[in-house]
């Protein structure tokens, strides 16, 4: 089972949950959804079988999203990237890893995938942390703290750059939205 199959499996579960929930609806209410969801679930099952058997990987590797990845067509892209194997995220690992990347690779590639997986988790923590901070502290306090912390720790910027960029961004947001547009952001639960 390649890692890309997990996403297909999640889609299948979502489709089945929607179908199950349709049972609570009246015949009129569930007509159009079931017309769409039943064939969608069947097609997802076929795709999952293809993924598990490995037949879907080549297709996944060739396909472009219509919103192609950052390395497609780039002069500095690796041959694998240029071939569209990464479909966007260049070799995303873990649960988001492309099926095409299931092929055995060298130690360096494995280490790179582990690092990418770590970066996915790190960004998830950053964005989740920002959302929780906005809920607790309100928009301006939370974004100020987020920008400063992120720039210092993640982007490796110096204190001067971090403070300047944070001040510029927060001031611009405050001026454009609070002063000029008179927008009111949700207040924090604590402040």
């Amino acid at each position: 089972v390649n890692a890309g199959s997990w996403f297909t499996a999640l889609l299948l579960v979502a489709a089945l949950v929607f179908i199950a929930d349709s049972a609570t609806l009246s015949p009129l209410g569930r007509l159009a959804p079931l017309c769409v969801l039943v064939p969608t679930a069947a097609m997802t099952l076929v795709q999952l079988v293809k993924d598990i058997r490995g037949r879907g990987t080549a297709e996944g590797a060739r396909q472009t999203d219509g919103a192609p990845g950052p390395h497609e067509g780039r002069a500095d892209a690796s041959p694998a990237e240029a071939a569209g194997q990464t479909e966007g995220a260049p070799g995303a690992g873990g649960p988001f890893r492309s099926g095409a990347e299931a092929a055995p690779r060298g130690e360096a590639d494995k280490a790179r995938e582990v690092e990418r997986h770590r970066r996915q988790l790190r960004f998830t923590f950053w964005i989740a942390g920002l959302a929780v901070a906005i809920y607790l502290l309100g928009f301006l306090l939370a974004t100020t703290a987020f920008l400063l912390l992120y720039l210092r720790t993640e982007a490796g910027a110096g204190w001067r750059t971090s403070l300047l960029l944070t001040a510029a961004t927060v001031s611009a947001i405050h001026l454009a939205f609070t002063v000029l547009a008179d927008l009111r952001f949700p207040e924090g639960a604590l402040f």
Partner: protein
Amino acid sequence: MLQAAWEALQIVLSWPNVLYPIGGTLLSMAFAFVPGLSGVTLMALAIPWTFQWDPLHVMLFFGALVGGATFMGSVTAILFNIPGTAPNAATTLDGYPMALNGEARTAIACSAAASALGSTVGIVLLIALVPLLRPLILAVGPLELLLLATWGLATIAIVSRRSVLKGLIAAGMGLAIGFVGVDPRTAEDRYTFGIEFLRDGVPLVPAFLGLFALAEMIDLFVSGRRTIAGDGVDGRLGGSVKEGLLAVFRYPGVFLRSSLLGMSIGTIPGIGGTVAGFVAYGDAARRHPEGRFGSGDVRGVLASEAANDAKDGGALVPMLAFGVPGSEGTALLLTALALHGITPGRELIENQLSLAFVLIWSLFLANWLTSIIGLLVSPQLARFTVVPAQKLVPVITVILVLAAIAYRGSFEDLVVTVAFGVVGYAMKANGWPRVSFVIALVLATLFETNLYLTARLLELGRLEPLQRPVALGLFALMVFTFGMPWVRSLSARVRGVGP
């Protein structure tokens, strides 16, 4: 009619009237450069500001707000893969890869030219259509709208032609997500799972912010690239403004077809610019299989932007004729005009035609102004592709979070953005076409409503499909759209050059 048009042009260009469209254009450009905000957001905010204004000035100002935002939305689509407004979503498909290939200036210039000329085509056709408005709108009913929505979905097979199965699954999931909320026919909660917020359905703007903007930020972070354009292209921005401008004249067929498609789709209430952009893009991609669509083909930018701006002229058709808004922008415009005692419809067309032309000229002026100003500043804007990516990620993330919250002032919208951001990244990383998902999400309500209406009309014997020429034409178009790829593939096999 020409007399009214000439009078209106003089009114628009007179001092100080001309300041209103210029001010409106500059404001909407600034708003559209912030991903997630748009001319529509600005229009909503501006309605209370203009209570005391003269109705003429309201016409001038709001006309500019409708026309001024679209081009700047394409700039963020090209530079950051973040559509500034929803109708710019199709521009990301080739605009962003062009920026990555070092052709940001070409893409922006092409977008500017396509926007200005596309809007001109839309407005010229609008003026030509003024005498024919009523019979045109009356020819479109639920069956035609259903066929149009289905045709929009059919383009999915074209856009994701290398993996039709994944394209269809993504479309199915998009429709399913579009069904979330209270069913307007039965008043039942569908797929809300007890969450009160979902009763109004999944909000499109926060969902798009997640799918297109946040997903890209995750990707940018995970990739570890030093600049947006990648480590290998620091300071080497290629492309030229001239080349971008000339693309419109180099591919006149793509430009004209896309403008006509945009104008036509714009006239249909509720379809909107997002569909126009994708349909025109799909059409261009289908007609030019030799192209590098999806990897940085200038024709992709040309098609989507020409259609986007041409649709504004089209959207004014039902609004001016019947007071039926063709898009979100015209819905707000209608609201603003009603507050000032202007009621579009027969009265406006027959007795106040010059006032209607004021709106049309203001829209025209805004489209040209935004393209010219945008073009002048494009060299500076293009430099954004070589700014340090890891420092840009938190700034853009904060702006998109702001856009999600500012949309309705609701924290739940941020949750939607984050959820769709993760889904968008997972789709991108695993080779699932986000385009199919987005098209289906946009078309879900239209599709379902008109499916029920058509079925009901057929049941009651009130609909004769074979006696509706527009429906027959759309059906033929669908057959053609579905059939052409198979015919081409078959013919290639017969010639021995296919797979």
